[in-house]
């Protein structure tokens, strides 16, 4: 047994590496810059976790979504690795300070990208040896990847400031173009690229076209009685997530909950834990419950609407079958589905008129308020949401309108409006195109798996049977797997609160 296998076995308790893992880790621990493309559920976490144990120096892990980061950190810590820590915007000032005073060269530090513009954090990190700079879900840093945020565009300069530690980017969904963009954005030097197929053989695809929403709902109910659980149902909006979960309840399935980004954190966590622990079997969710979520036995993913890109579709579908067993992904599609994502795209970017209004207001209030003027008041005043605001700040900085945190008021002119508008229109068009691409893929009769692979610049070599609805697969051919129902001792509802509490705290009595 060689060294890596031993560590895998002893420290992580796995028998063998999953395909690709060992090769990737071998490159990383040689301190090369590495891009790793492994399918959803392919074990990317282990790749950087194990590498971090072998490289001297602190490991920084950048992940895009806050909830994702918290989960990952708590799962790793719950498994016993207390070297894993995190700093993100949800921590209080004191908590950040405490984490910072506790990190050392063994730490694996998860950071949300915006934390890297925090001076205290950067000062502290600069004093330490950084062994590895990991960017998980790296497709997000590409202008062409989904969930793009401007904070990512600073990663290159930040990495330089940290003395250019070896850089390790991981993703499941990167086309060649995205891959090149990742390399460029992170300033990687002749990186080693490990590209594995995005294909998930155990997932079977079904696309059903309907003419209107009534038909869709009927079809959905029909599927509900056939599909295997646990299941995730994705919707385009929060409202529909709630609506569908009520529908499911009405159909007699009580073990359902909805999940979306607008819920309070405590309830969001409870739902997530209930689902992971098999206490509920259906979850109706917006895209907030996607990327990175790791529950082995999800058997079905239903898309009640069209997602916004092939990447997003593949990421969400990738929540299924992570235990290697057959799973089914169903997309219910209706021509009107495109309206919601298209309007999301529209709202994501400021319009020309908005830009002009904001700039005029900035100029005026600057005059009347003098030096006391704060950019943030503008955000409040016009109720600009975080993402659009950050995007605006980024472009203002990039075009020199904000220098050293000072607004150069005279540069807020018409020319700037036109220039920004141009940028935003281009980005908008790209996004619209990506939506249309997915729509066409789902609309055509060609093999869905083949189309996905083609999209990610792969050739379809092996045949997967059964494959997808275009290849003749239907629900009737689906394997019906009867899993022994996990024995979750449920507290009897007829119990009084007192006996419930008693049972929680004193497991060994009461059986007398």
């Amino acid at each position, binding site marked *: 047994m060689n060294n890596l296998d031993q560590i895998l076995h002893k420290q992580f308790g796995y028998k063998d590496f999953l395909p690709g893992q060992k090769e990737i880790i071998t490159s990383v621990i040689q301190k090369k810059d590495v891009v790793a493309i492994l399918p959803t559920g392919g074990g990317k976490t282990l790749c950087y976790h194990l590498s971090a144990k072998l490289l001297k120096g602190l490991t920084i892990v950048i992940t895009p979504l806050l909830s994702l980061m918290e989960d990952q950190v*708590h799962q790793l810590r719950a*498994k016993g690795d207390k070297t894993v820590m995190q700093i993100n915007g949800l921590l209080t000032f004191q*908590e950040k300070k405490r984490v910072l005073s506790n990190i050392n060269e063994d730490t694996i530090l998860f950071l949300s990208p915006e934390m890297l513009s925090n001076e205290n954090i950067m000062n502290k990190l600069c004093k330490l040896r950084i062994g590895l700079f990991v960017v998980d879900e790296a497709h997000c840093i590409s202008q062409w990847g989904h969930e793009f945020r401007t904070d990512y565009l600073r990663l290159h300069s930040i990495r330089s400031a940290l003395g250019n530690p070896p850089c390790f980017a991981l993703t499941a969904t990167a086309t060649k173009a995205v891959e090149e963009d990742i390399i460029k954005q992170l300033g990687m030097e002749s990186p080693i690229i490990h590209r594995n197929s995005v294909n998930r053989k155990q997932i079977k695809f079904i696309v059903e076209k309907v003419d209107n929403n009534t038909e869709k709902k009927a079809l959905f109910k029909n599927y509900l009685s056939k599909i295997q659980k646990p299941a995730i149902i994705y919707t385009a909006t929060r409202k529909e997530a709630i609506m569908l979960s009520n529908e499911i309840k009405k159909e007699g399935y009580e073990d359902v909950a909805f999940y979306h980004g607008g819920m309070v954190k*405590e309830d969001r966590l409870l739902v997530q834990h209930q689902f992971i*622990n098999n206490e509920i079997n259906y979850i109706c969710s917006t895209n907030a419950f996607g990327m990175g979520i790791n529950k082995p036995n999800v058997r079905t993913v239903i898309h009640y609407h069209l997602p916004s890109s092939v990447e997003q579709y593949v990421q969400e579908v990738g929540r299924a079958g992570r235990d290697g067993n057959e799973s089914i992904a169903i997309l219910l599609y209706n021509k009107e589905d495109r309206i919601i994502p298209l309007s999301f795209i529209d709202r994501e970017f400021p319009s020309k008129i908005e830009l002009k209004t904001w700039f005029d207001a900035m100029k005026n209030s600057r005059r009347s308020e003098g030096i006391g003027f704060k950019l943030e008041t503008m955000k409040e005043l016009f109720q600009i949401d975080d993402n659009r605001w950050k995007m605006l700040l980024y472009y203002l900085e990039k075009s020199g309108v904000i220098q050293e945190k000072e607004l150069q008021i005279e540069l807020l002119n018409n020319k700037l409006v036109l220039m920004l508008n141009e940028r935003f229109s281009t980005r908008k068009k790209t996004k619209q195109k990506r939506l249309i691409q997915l729509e066409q893929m789902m609309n055509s009769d060609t093999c869905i798996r083949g189309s996905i692979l083609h999209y990610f610049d792969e050739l379809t070599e092996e045949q997967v049977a059964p494959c997808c609805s275009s290849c003749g697969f239907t629900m009737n051919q689906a394997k019906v797997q009867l899993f022994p129902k996990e024995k*979750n001792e449920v507290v009897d509802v007829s119990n009084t609160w007192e006996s*419930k*509490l008693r049972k*929680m*705290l004193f497991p060994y009595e009461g059986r007398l």
Partner: protein
Amino acid sequence: MNTLHWIVLFIIDKLNGQRTTSGVYHLIKGKRSAQTIQDAYIFHCAPYVSSIKDLKKEEFYQIINELVEKNFILVKTQDVGVITNTGKQKLVNLQGLPILPKEFNGSKHEWNGSAQFFWERYSLAIQTLSYLQHGKNNFIPVCYHLEVQRWLKLLFQQYLMDTKIMSDNIYVETTELLRKVSNQHANLFVNRLTSPYGTGKTYDQLCKDFNDDPIKTKLIFQSVIHQFLDTIEKKPKKYPFLMNFVIKTKGDSITNSAKETNYYLRLGKTINEISNIRKLRVSTIEDHLIELALFDAEFNYTPFISDEEIKNILITAKDLKTKRLRVLKDHFNPTYTYFQLRLALTKEKGADSE
């Protein structure tokens, strides 16, 4: 109309056309500002402060629009909300049906975060004890707050890691407290807890018994905690274990920044001097003084306004039937500054013993 609508309508009625809708929003959400807490006392709706902490602005204005559409309120110029007769009637119909559980006291337990402080610690303690009592060491905590996790670790050390004793204590004291509430409410409370038998339930999952209204459910749940805290406060000797879960610093309604201002004040500095020393605006320092006037019994008004003047202002406010600073200011101009008027209005608090 659900609970949220009721609360908004109720507060608009209380504020009596004297505050903007955003003032209503801040009150419900519990903005940490002297103005908000002062409003709550002046207009006798202290229990409602921070009653819906996670209320989103869009959600709030959606409700305002719905209330306008139903002709329950009017939004006048400068965003001031007023209740209509139809709206008043609607509220009258509600009498006898309290919108808030009577134990609920937002200004005491929500505004300064003491209810949340208690619950985060309590729920994590129950989860941890219950998992450990079942011989399970690995679990994902229901509370991600590092500070709370660290706090619990210290508590365990204090009790020499004896989970049996800790479980006994928490059980005895909790049942004692829950016996004081209805069975229905006690069940609600226990169903929020996480143990190896199941994860705590969300308000959406528990609202069946409470008019299918998750917000109502949440308010009732919180009122149980408020009652816990009130009882523990009254008889701390009876609840030695749960005393550990109660926020320590009394008078914690005062922000740190106001405390610092108070420090300089006691050194005899003037408002302007403090503003210079602390590099804060004069108006910010004045906000601090209002905070202190509201919450610090030892706060001394006299350098800023005399008792006679306070009396004068309060009587005038009563005569003019207004608590709007602008109106009072116009009336008195230029006798009193805005700051003096606000300071005088804090004295209204004493009259408020709801």
